[in-house]
């Protein structure tokens, strides 16, 4: 939930300008996940549930170590386990901590019709305000990463907050704090990108991962969560991480050209009908005018 000290730069479903926009600048925050040093211990999953006080739900066994098939409204942080056989016959056991990516251009926020239900703070965190949520689920459609999840009981949508309540007090997110291998890092976007690039270079030069690289997809304006991958050319291997994510084009069309075209047509239509009445009037002034004159004419 929002903190008074956090400034907002984008508001969902908001008419007019954003109050206080550009009055303060902050460095964009970023989480760096190095999948090459993740051991799949799930400490981050537990820390997320504990800190955010999420009620425990049933786990689902699917022949892997994975806790459940995908994130839930009360399970925001999930490590995806995937086995990949390389061309030389060796096996790669890929583990990727999956959660909200905190896009710079968030599809959830774009699709949301409710004023203030989704906000983006000046530090880049995308946060759901359940008090303003109307439960329409448009955010689910707007998100290219399958992250927002609907709770049928409260009829609200939930997801990772990037531990906004911790971050606004100068602490790191709970998942970062709990990581025993140091594969999770937290800091400014610039610092994290530099660290990620250094690690990717190391993997390419010294660890025989010629395709190692950083995942920070430009299609959504870059993300507040970036990955170091052994093979950045195939992000799909890591539990279906989209190669080139975008806000769905129908959502862009709906919230962009269609909106302006529709508004122009509706307002133009009203004006057109009014002008038609001024110019031509009713087909007959009163119903009596319709009765043909009989007998004497005036």
């Amino acid at each position: 939930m929002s903190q008074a000290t956090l400034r907002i730069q984008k508001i969902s479903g908001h008419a007019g300008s954003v109050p206080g926009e550009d009055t303060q600048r902050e460095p964009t925050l970023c989480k760096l996940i190095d999948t090459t040093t993740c051991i799949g211990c799930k400490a981050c999953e537990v820390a997320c549930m504990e800190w955010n006080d999420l009620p425990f739900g049933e786990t689902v066994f699917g022949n892997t170590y994975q806790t459940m098939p995908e994130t839930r409204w009360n399970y925001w942080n999930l490590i995806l386990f995937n086995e990949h056989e390389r061309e030389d016959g060796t096996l790669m056991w890929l583990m990727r901590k999956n959660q909200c990516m905190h896009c710079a251009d968030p599809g959830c926020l774009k699709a949301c019709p409710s004023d203030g239900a989704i906000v983006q703070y000046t530090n880049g965190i995308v946060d759901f305000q359940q008090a303003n949520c109307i439960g329409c689920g448009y955010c689910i459609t707007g998100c290219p990463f399958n992250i927002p999840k609907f709770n049928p009981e409260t009829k609200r949508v939930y997801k990772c907050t990037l531990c906004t309540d911790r971050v606004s007090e100068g602490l790191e997110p709970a998942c970062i704090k709990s990581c025993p291998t140091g594969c999770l890092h937290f800091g400014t976007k610039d610092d994290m990108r530099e660290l990620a690039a250094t690690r990717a270079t190391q993997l390419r030069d010294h660890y025989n991962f010629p395709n190692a690289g950083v995942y920070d997809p430009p299609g959504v304006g870059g993300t507040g969560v970036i990955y170091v991958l052994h093979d950045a050319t195939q992000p799909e291997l890591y539990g279906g991480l989209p190669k080139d994510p975008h806000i769905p084009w129908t959502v862009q069309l709906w919230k962009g050209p269609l909106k302006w075209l529709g508004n122009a047509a509706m307002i133009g239509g009203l004006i057109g009908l009014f002008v038609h009445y001024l110019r031509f009037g009713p087909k007959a002034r009163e119903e009596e005018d319709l009765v043909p004159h009989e007998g004497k004419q005036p």
Partner: protein
Amino acid sequence: MSHQEQLLPHGHVLRYAFHERLMHWVAAFSYIYLLLTGLAFWSPWLFWLAVMLGGAPVSRMLHPWIGLIFLFGVLQMYGMWSSQMHFTEVDRAWFQSVGHYIRNEDDQMPPAGRYNAGQKLLFWGFVLCGLLLFLSGLVLWFPEYIPWNLRWLRYTAVIVHASSALLTIGLFMIHVYMGVFAERGAFGSVIRGDVSIEFARRYHPGWYKEIVESSTPRK
């Protein structure tokens, strides 16, 4: 309904039977609710409409249910009127001289039947858009049950729902304008059911001819 029953005393003609009027208003009132709540979700500048109607979460909850009532009204009207809505040669000529219609030169129009070509267009527009709105609306009602590999359904639904709603808004504006302002007598016909015989002769000459030729008016 025989033509004999359609002729009423004092030079009036029954245009819409009770069931036709009732179903028109079932669809009309539900459409107006759908329009207002739908516009609230369409634009942040109109979000206050949902607040006025009991709050946006209430609007989000009721919109699909009222949509089912609207669908019921549309299907009823489809059942009653679809056989009278086939386009004919007269309708083709009517569209060609639509300019006269717009300029209120009704004496220069080809003789329309019970429904003129514009009304038929309105009918088919609402039937088609009503079905599209229903199908896309089902997806938007329960987006959380659409699995990730069928997400294209949600992507299609948002654009289909908005586009077909916009089309109905265009039809609706013209329909209300014609029925309430432009064609005096039309609004009463869908409330009381009758129009003057002169209304029938002037706006629906084909229909007028049918009625008069097959019956003798009661005095």
